[in-house]
């Protein structure tokens, strides 16, 4: 079976006089290198110049706020369960009186940490989130000098009030309908499954 057309049969024959001189081969090699001298380099000078990335690029996460500026996350822990790299940890707390403008529901994440060194940017957290609270964005996680600087807390993850991070590309109608489609297994709760099984049995 031939896999490529680039195979080269190696012949172990005696070299001719011209080949033994090596000079033609050397000149040939030098003509190749001089040609490369005039080729454009494909380097992207990163901080000044950025590579074109896809609209749905999976980069640094953001924890969204709702239209009133309250945090959407309820610390249900589904993202942490879904995470294959076990990069997400959180601690939940109950919302107190007078914090309604800060947190959308009665429970909220007191701490929410993603270890960016563990994260594989698969986007399963985003898929698992029932509250549309966590999204991956097209921002690139910057490099740091210390390991613990890669553990992003709420200070880096929650979007600032009044400056929402645009995630509309990752929140299209198709994505939303896919997330809410109850016939898809991944969206089914235990109750849904029982209901479905009941309807199939009848």
């Amino acid at each position, binding site marked *: 079976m031939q896999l490529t057309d680039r195979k080269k049969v190696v012949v172990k024959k005696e070299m001719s006089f011209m080949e033994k001189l090596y000079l033609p081969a050397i000149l040939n090699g030098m003509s190749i290198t001089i040609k490369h001298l005039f080729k454009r380099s*494909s380097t992207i000078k990163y901080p000044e110049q950025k590579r074109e990335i896809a609209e749905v690029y999976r980069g640094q996460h953001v924890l969204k706020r709702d239209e009133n500026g309250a945090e959407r996350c309820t610390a249900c822990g589904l993202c942490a369960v879904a995470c294959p790299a076990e990069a997400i940890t959180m601690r939940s707390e109950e919302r107190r009186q007078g914090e309604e403008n800060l947190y959308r529901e009665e429970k909220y994440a007191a701490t929410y940490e993603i270890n960016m060194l563990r994260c594989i940017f698969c986007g399963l957290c985003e898929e698992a989130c029932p509250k549309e609270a966590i999204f991956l964005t097209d921002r690139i996680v910057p490099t740091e000098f210390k390991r613990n600087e890669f553990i992003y807390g709420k200070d880096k993850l929650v979007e600032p009030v009044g400056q929402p991070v645009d995630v509309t590309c990752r929140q299209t109608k198709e994505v939303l309908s896919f997330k809410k489609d109850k016939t898809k297994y991944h969206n089914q709760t235990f109750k849904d499954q029982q209901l479905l099984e009941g309807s199939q049995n009848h």
Partner: protein
Amino acid sequence: MIAFIIYKSILVFVVFLVSLGIAAYSTYAERKVAAFMQDRVGPDRAGPFGILQPIADGIKMFMKEEIIPTVSNKFLFVLGPSLAMLTALMTGVVIPWGGDLSFGGQVYPLQITDINIGILYVFGVVSIGVYGIMIGGWASNNKYSMLGALRASSQMISYEIAMGLAIVALVMKTGTLSLGEIVNQQNGDWWNICYQPLGFLIFLICAFAETNRAPFDLPECETELVGGYHTEYSSMKLGFYLFAEYINIFISAAIMSSLYFGGYNIPFQHLIPVGPNILAFLQVGFFFSKIIFFIFFFMWVRWTIPRFRYDQLMNLGWKIMIPLAIFNILATGIMMFALGKV
């Protein structure tokens, strides 16, 4: 007499500074040429296009911790790089950089000294250069350094023979050992490369071996010998070794262009309608463009050809280069006899 001494001192100082400057920017050029040949960008962070990179490198070299191994011979350990640097800088003395300048009836030649055995002087000094590497490698008391030094000395000694024999043919043709005289003979005449193409090829290949450049950079072969003879060196002592290599490249480029490519002579320079002083400066510029081409050529070869194996190196030196050089002498002699120039 005082004016003469002052003039010579200034010239020596200028040649010294130019050698160091060219060597410093050779490191930058080397990295840039390597990058371009590999479709990369190269250093571009220090200043526009990375033009300040050599200065940054120099500062880095000075700031690095200086380590002298406890088991080494301290005096020789310091002497090694000093000797390498000294011999590298000494050879620039006999090279004619341009035509004569004349101010107020006084003639100022742009050559520090035109000794009548210029080529022999260069060879002598270059041979002492081997000691720099050998002493450094031996004083380190490290087997890798020792092997690197052994390779360097054997390589330089064996290629010096072929180089000398190539020069013998040239000396037969020119009839003089003075570099100034050889360059003068090429004024308004064909360059020596036309008479000695084989001699030039041998000289070129031996120059690569003499300066320890790829494909003959076995003394510092990283894959086998860690860093070769400068494994134990750090800080500016290492810098001296690297610098000496680039100065040697500069000097051998200068010698190659003066011996075989007309030196500072511009073709049809008698037709250029300028005064002798301006012409002298034009000649210096032309000479330096030749030198820069040869330095580029050194780099071009380095990033094209892989390193020789040690036995291949010795075979090439003793079994091909030396017989070829002897053949070249014979052919030159026969040609001269046939043309009635003896």
